[in-house]
């Protein structure tokens, strides 16, 4: 795909997904498919910065990500027809996806850590939906990656829905609401357990 030509690439993506939709509707895919549509332009812009050697960690909705990573259309189509739309994976293109919401995030962090240890110039790109980005695992992964300066970027794909559940409504309508938290500091006197003196039982 020629990512420099946004209009052309956008149409290629849409055409591919239309083909998959038709195959699904004609009963050729005996498995769930999570079709993409409407997010072509922001994705194309993001993928302009993603090198072939970089790693992409995706979600259950990964058709566009796979194509934009450079995986041949024929391979992606065959995988989808073989009931693996929900977990497209291609090691030749450093492309991983999982159907567990938020599940691929820590794996992405581990790969980013490995890249850092190796002194690699490659980067990890971790995609997550808007509900995934509200989960505790997202907080852990972003906090740990940031504080350890790991070569990873998280991309939140926000369509406002998790399956059919409105994400923000499910979390609570009062977006500015704050939990009551009291935090105090103190210096520990005794060790983690016991008294610090040896006891013979």
């Amino acid at each position: 795909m020629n990512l420099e030509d946004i209009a052309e690439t956008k149409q290629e993506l849409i055409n591919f997904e239309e083909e998959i939709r038709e195959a699904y509707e004609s009963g050729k895919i005996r498995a769930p498919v999570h079709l993409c549509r409407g997010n072509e332009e922001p994705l194309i812009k993001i993928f302009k910065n993603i090198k072939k050697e970089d790693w992409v960690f995706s979600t259950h909705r990964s058709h566009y990500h796979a194509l934009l990573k450079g995986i041949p259309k024929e391979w992606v189509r065959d995988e989808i027809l073989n009931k693996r739309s929900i977990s497209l994976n291609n090691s030749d293109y450093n492309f991983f996806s999982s159907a567990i919401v938020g599940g691929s995030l820590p794996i992405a962090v581990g790969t980013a850590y490995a890249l850092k240890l190796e002194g690699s110039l490659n980067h990890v790109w971790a995609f997550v939906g808007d509900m995934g980005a509200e989960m505790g695992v997202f907080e852990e992964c972003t906090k740990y990656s940031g504080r350890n300066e790991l070569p990873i970027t998280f991309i939140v794909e926000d369509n406002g829905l998790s399956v059919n559940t409105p994400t923000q409504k499910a979390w609570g309508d009062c977006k500015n609401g704050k939990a009551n938290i009291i935090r105090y500091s103190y210096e520990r006197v005794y060790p983690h357990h016991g008294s610090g003196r040896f006891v013979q039982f």
Partner: protein
Amino acid sequence: MTYKDELTKAMNFLAENDRVLFLGQTVNYSGSAIYGTLEKIAISKKIELPIMEDTQLGISIGFSLKGYIPVSIYPRMDFLICATNQLVNHVDKIEEMSNNQFKPKVIIRTAIGSRNPLYPGVQHCSDYTDSFKSMLKNVDVIRLENSNEIVPTYKKALKSDRSTLIIELSDMYNQE
């Protein structure tokens, strides 16, 4: 040689492999029986992680995708329960769900907490060996019943193409 001596020997053996890394809580700081078996291993091979059990196992998988052999450490089996998502949904399933594109290999080290001389309560000494065996079809689950099994088990885990969950018995640490 005591059970603990054999564990220390096994860890030192693993550490000789350039691709092996040790991850978890108490790999660099005291606080668990497991820590005492890692003291002679270079700090550069040990990554002390915060408590985030499930994320820890995901990070371990991520290392394995890059060719490392992570030894992911959970000082008590009760804590490994918190990582069951990554263990069952990814360590055990990635090869199948990716149509053999990825085959992570992780060595998971945990222990059934000791009951003597102090009883730590039901959340610190549970044994879920049989439950994990029934949930995992692509991960070898091995409980180290005596000290002479320890080094051969870790050697086999290092050589294996599969991931291995190795369960120690903390009450055995000072026994031959």
